[in-house]
């Protein structure tokens, strides 16, 4: 794993995909592997440091048993228009192929109007709380707990 000043900088590493572009946007994106509590399979989520919030697709949230009504209402301006939804807490794991996975609880925006299957890991409240690094030559995503 990566080290900084002799100490651990990250705890785990996994491959990411950069070749699952959306039909409306052909440029390469970074899709990292994610595991949600109560969902028995693994998922991909787009890493987006420019997004203020993390987003879970409505079908994914439903399948994972995440109750949106317990969340805080919010409108979010998106490329698909203004979406009404909720900010909710969800528990997830960043999957490690090498080293250790990282389990965390973070805030996600969930809207019934958001496209199905489109998950984002955004900056505030998620990426700003961990350490991460990318190796684009090997398509490796390194991650670890923040300090």
């Amino acid at each position, binding site marked *: 794993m990566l080290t900084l000043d002799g100490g651990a900088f990250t705890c785990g590493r996994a491959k990411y995909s950069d070749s699952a572009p959306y039909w409306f946007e052909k440029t390469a994106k970074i899709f990292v592997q994610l595991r949600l509590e109560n969902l028995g399979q693994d998922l991909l989520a787009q890493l987006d440091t420019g997004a203020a919030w993390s987003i879970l697709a409505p079908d994914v949230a439903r399948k994972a048993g995440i109750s949106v009504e317990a969340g805080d209402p919010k*409108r979010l301006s998106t490329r698909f228009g203004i979406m009404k939804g909720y900010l909710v807490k969800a528990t997830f794991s960043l999957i490690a*192929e090498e080293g250790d996975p990282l389990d965390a609880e973070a805030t996600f925006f969930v809207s019934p109007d958001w496209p199905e299957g489109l998950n984002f890991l955004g900056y505030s409240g998620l990426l700003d709380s961990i350490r991460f690094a990318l190796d684009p030559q090997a398509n490796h995503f390194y991650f670890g707990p923040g300090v």
Partner: protein
Amino acid sequence: MAKALRKPTEEETRSYTERIRELIEQDCVQGARTLLAEALEHGEQEEDFPILQSVLAPAKILRVGGERGMDRASDFQWLKDHSSEYRGQWVALFAGELLAHGKSLEDVTAQLEAHPSENRALLHRIH
């Protein structure tokens, strides 16, 4: 001598909750966190503070360690090679093989549950 009347500023007439919610609507998360911290430091207590504290909190690290994932290189290669054939569908992949596909996540997970496996599939919706 009487003091001159001063018109209260907008910040003085609006509750912390209103101002924090406005910052959240503007996606100014750091500003909302700062204002909430200021309110709590001043001993303010408003009904929505607990939920605002919850949604504005940084991610909480619960654990480092546990079950490792498998090498997904072959699944990523499958996505590269076959995405155009399954546009608008969910796919379930394992070891570079398509295990299930369908229009909804519910449909695909039902197909997986009909053939239980110890291996976790990679689910992805191709847009």
